[in-house]
C-alpha cells in the first residue's frame, strides 16, 4: 500500500562536488557484485521513481550503495516540459528522496510524460516557443524551490520537430539557464541521436551548448532504424555499449569543458557488472587524460 509521504525537512547540507569521475546506473541485480568489489571511486545514479515506494528491498539496496558512494538522483517523470501544472504529490516525493539520500547530483529532463490523468512512461518532446519557455522555467523554479538546490536539466533526444518551434533547442536551453539558474546534464548520446535524426552536425549543437553550466554528462548506447524516406533514425535505447562516435564527441567536450562527473547509462538488456564497470573505466580514462593534460599545462605555465 502506498501512503502519502510526509514532506521531510530538506537540510541545507550539500555533498561536495565530486569532480571528473565516471559512474554507472545502479541496477539492483548488480548489488552483490558491487559489494564484493568493495567501495570504489565513482558514483551511482538511480531513477528517482524506483525509490518512491514506502519501504522494502529497494530502499535497503540504495542505503547500502549510498553509504560508500556518491549518489546521483535522476528523475524521469516530473513532466517539466508539459503544459499542465506539476504534480505536487510527485514533487513532494522527489523532495523527500533528496532529503533522505543527500545526492550529490539531482537531475530531470526537458520533456513531458503526463497529460491530463495519463502517464505515458516516455520522454515526450515539446515545441520551443516563448510560451513553452515560460512554462518550463516556471516548473524548474518550483522544483528548485522544493529541493532548495539547483537542478541539472537534461537535453532530450528527439525523433521529430514541432512546426510551431520558433527557436533552436540550444537557444531554448540557454534561455532556461539564464532565467532559472539551473545547471545542465549534457547527454552526448542524445545530441548524437537528435543530430542524426534531424540532419545537423552534432558539433554545431555542442558549440552552441552552454558548456560552462554542465554539471554532469550522460553517455549511452542507441539503436538504429529508418524513417519513411529511408533516412537513418537513431533510437535512444540505452540497451548497449556507447557508440564510437559518441566516445569521440565526449573526448572533444571534455577537452573543451574540463572533467565533469560522467555517467554510463544502461537501462535495458543490462549486462553483467564487469561489462558496465568497463564502460565506466573507459570514460574515466578519458577524464584522467584530460586532468593529466591540464596538470602538464599548469607545470609548463609555472
Amino acid at each position: 500500500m502506498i501512503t502519502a509521504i510526509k514532506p521531510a525537512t530538506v537540510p541545507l547540507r550539500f555533498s561536495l562536488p565530486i569532480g571528473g569521475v565516471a559512474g554507472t546506473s545502479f541496477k539492483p541485480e548488480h548489488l552483490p557484485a558491487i559489494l564484493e568489489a568493495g567501495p570504489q571511486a565513482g558514483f551511482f545514479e538511480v531513477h528517482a521513481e524506483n525509490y518512491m515506494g514506502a519501504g522494502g528491498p529497494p530502499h535497503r539496496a540504495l542505503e547500502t550503495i549510498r553509504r560508500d558512494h556518491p549518489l546521483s538522483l535522476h528523475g524521469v517523470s516530473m513532466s517539466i516540459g508539459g503544459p499542465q501544472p506539476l504534480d505536487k504529490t510527485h514533487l513532494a516525493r522527489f523532495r523527500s528522496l533528496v532529503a533522505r539520500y543527500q545526492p550529490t547530483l539531482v537531475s530531470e529532463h526537458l520533456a513531458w510524460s503526463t497529460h491530463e490523468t495519463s502517464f505515458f512512461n516516455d520522454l515526450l518532446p515539446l515545441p520551443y516557443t516563448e510560451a513553452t519557455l515560460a512554462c518550463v522555467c516556471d516548473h524548474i523554479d518550483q522544483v528548485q524551490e522544493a529541493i532548495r538546490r539547483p537542478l541539472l536539466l537534461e537535453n532530450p533526444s528527439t525523433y521529430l520537430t514541432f512546426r510551431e518551434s520558433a527557436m533552436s533547442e540550444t537557444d531554448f536551453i540557454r534561455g532556461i539557464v539564464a532565467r532559472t539558474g539551473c545547471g545542465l546534464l549534457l547527454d552526448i548520446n542524445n545530441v548524437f541521436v537528435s543530430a542524426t535524426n534531424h540532419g545537423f552536425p552534432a558539433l554545431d549543437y555542442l558549440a552552441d551548448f552552454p558548456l560552462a553550466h554542465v554539471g554532469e554528462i550522460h553517455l549511452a548506447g542507441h539503436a538504429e532504424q529508418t524513417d519513411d524516406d529511408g533516412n537513418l533514425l537513431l533510437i535512444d535505447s540505452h540497451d548497449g555499449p556507447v557508440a564510437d562516435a559518441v566516445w569521440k564527441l565526449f573526448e572533444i567536450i571534455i577537452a573543451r569543458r574540463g572533467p565533469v562527473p560522467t555517467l554510463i547509462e544502461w537501462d535495458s538488456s543490462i549486462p553483467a557488472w564487469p561489462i558496465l564497470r568497463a564502460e565506466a573505466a573507459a570514460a574515466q580514462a578519458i577524464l584522467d587524460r584530460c586532468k593529466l593534460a591540464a596538470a602538464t599545462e599548469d607545470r609548463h605555465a609555472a
Partner: protein
Amino acid sequence: MRRDADLGFAAAFAPPLLDPAREVPTAVAGRNGKPAGRRYDVYRNNVTVSLIETLAAIYPAVQRITGPDFFRAMARFHVRSSPPASPLLFDYGRDFPDFVANYAHAHDMPWLADVARIERAWLDAYHAADALPLAPALLSTIALERLGGLVLTPHPATRIVRSPYAAVTIFAANRDGTPTARIDASTPEDALITRPEFDVVVRHLPPGGAVFAASLTSGQPLGAAAIAAFDASPEFDIAENIAGLIEAGAFTSLAAGDA
C-alpha cells in the same frame, strides 16, 4: 488565455499515442517539414512496449503460464484502455487481474486472474513500509481470559488473496521458472503474503485461515475472528492459525482488549 492556446501541443500529441486508429498529429514533422509518420510511431512504440513490459515485470507468472505472445496481446489491450494514472510504475496494473478475469481468450484458465492477484499483492508487499514483526513470545504474556479481546495490528506488507482454484500452487510453480509437475487446479487455495523483513513470502492458509486472517487484519478482536473462521470452516484450528500468522510476520503489535 493566450498562454493556453500556445500550450496546446500536448493535447494534440498525446491522444494518438495509445490509439493506432488516430492520425499522426500534423503539428509535428520529420525532416524538411515532411509528415512525421514513422518518427511519431517511435513514441507510440516506446509508450506501448514499455507499459507492456511493466505489466510483464509485475506479472511474470501470468506471462509464463500464457506464453509471451498471448501475454503481450492481452497486456496491449489493457495498456491501451487503462494507461497508468501515476508515474510510479510499481503501482500500475491494479485493475489488470479484473481485466484478465474478463478477457475472453483466457476463459479456459479461470485461475489466471487469481494468480495475477497474488502477483499484485506480492509487489505491494515488496514496496510496503518497513516494520518489525510481532515477536511470537509476546502472545504468551497475555492472560487467557483477555485473549478473546486481543486486537492485532497488521504489518504494512500483509495481504490475503482467496481463490476457488489452486492459485497459490500455480503461482509458486510459475514464478521461479522451474519445471512444473501436473497441478489439480480445482483445489481452492487461499494465500497469505507477508514480508517480515526483506523477503516476500507467499504461504497457503489452512481451512478457515483466510476468514480468520482477514478479520484480524481488519481490526476484529481474536474471539470474533475465531468465530467467523469456525463459521467458514468447521476444520478451523485456532492454535495452528494464530501461531502460523505470527510466525509469518503478519502483525506488528498487539493490544489486549477487555476481559
